[in-house]
């Protein structure tokens, strides 16, 4: 094995997830996010789940969420309209922690 720089999806693939396909635990209001200038979520999410699409708008996937809460804490414009922990037994399961 060699230790290399890893992209976020590659790192996340090492984790165990049980994604709740029915109920996203984080929900954005894209209209609010459109107006947000700073977009701190792009930089502070450890899993880099917040990205800009071709139109310069936020695209987000809750599937690889590590449930840290940093995006919620940093979201000043309240574009994150819902941030809950995933329903019981869903989400990330750390095997080491």
């Amino acid at each position, binding site marked *: 094995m060699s*230790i290399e*720089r890893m992209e976020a999806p590659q790192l996340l693939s090492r984790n165990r997830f049980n994604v709740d396909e029915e109920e996203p635990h984080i929900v954005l209001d894209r209209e609010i996010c459109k107006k947000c200038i700073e977009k701190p979520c792009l*930089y*502070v999410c450890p899993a880099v789940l917040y990205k800009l699409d071709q139109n310069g708008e936020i695209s987000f996937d809750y599937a690889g969420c*590590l449930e840290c809460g940093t995006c919620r804490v940093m979201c000043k414009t309240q574009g994150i309209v819902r941030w809950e922990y995933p329903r019981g037994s869903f989400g*990330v*399961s*750390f095997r080491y*922690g």
Partner: protein
Amino acid sequence: MSEEEKFDVIIIGAGPAGSSCAYTLAREGKSVLMIERGDTPGSKNVTGGRFYTYALEMLDSGLYEEAALERKVTHEQIMLLSGDRSISIDYHEPGFNTGGEAPMSYTILRANFDEWLAEKAEEMGAMLACGIRVEELIERDGKIVGVRAGEDEMYADVVVAADGVNSFMAQKAGLIKDIEAHTVGVGVKEVIELPARTIEERFNLKEGEGAARMILGCTEGIHGGGFLYTNQDSISLGCVFMPAKAAERGKTIHEIFQDFKMHPSIHPLLQGGLTVEYGAHLVSEAGYRGIPRKIYREGFLMVGDAAGFVINTGYSIRGIDLAMLSGIAAARAIIDAENTAEVGPQYLKELDEIKIIPAMKAADGFFDVLETPGLYDKMPNLANDVFNNLFTVDGGVPGSIKKDVMRLIKENGLSMWQLIKFGLKGVKSL
């Protein structure tokens, strides 16, 4: 409400605070239900991490001998990075692991430790329900009397919020607002598997002994720092960032962390290893001044991270031990109080008695020290520049070291006065 749904105590979260509370209560014959949202206790938790053993000794003497712990820390290390350079300090004290006595601290992985501790609480008679997310608190006549999870309602004399740094339960109880960005750090971590022998050789360790390393200068000037802990068969390498500063930097914390992992002084320690997990978690950074004004109301207590019980001095970080202590304090208060109205005030007394509050008060000044401008880039850079000056031999006539150092202080955008002020601030807070 039927009898079988009513407990003496319901604890939300089966981390170190929740399980210590449950263990102590169940040992005294109280009926206790722990509710954990993860599939197993610890599966939602991340630490650096290290654990100070005295807390387990306080829970039950000798318990540490069978605990799910990694390595006994005998090497305390500090590292200052700048560009591709580094300075390392290794303080080795074999006495931190004296035979026959509890070693002072261990490296730790939370999925193992938390699951083990919850099992111990179960052995004492506590009930554990996993895979359940508590959604609401049930309030009656101004008191918290139970919890709701989906369709289920469960009742208790006291509900203990041991739900961690993002304490939604404390928010629902109206005791705190949502977290303010400048009071927390976000930690990211890779767990990298390596054979035990390789780890021992690379870190100059005896079998079963370990190293704990704090690293300054790996965050591109962002308030924060790196850490490295040697586990039995793996290394925990991570970085903590103040998120507000990270957002201003305009580079993802993931990228900064990957740069740090590839640093020429870090990378060789990991070489040949396999990354088996990538975790992240918030950590309270505000210390004593971050403890909420009220950490109880009738029928409701906050323990562990939920109550902000973390001490960060920059060179050591304590959270798990304080969590356990606060769980024990909460349990003692519940056992001693005559009625639910007495529990909260009694809990405050127990927290004082068990020394959490005095210890946090004593470390309060570190918050200001860690806010010092230049601490995360200019100062580690200056230290490396000074070493470069000492060790450079190129056949020229060496200048006066004093003059060179003064020049380097200036070149790093610092002044002698700033450094003296920093020193004084440090001395004052100790």
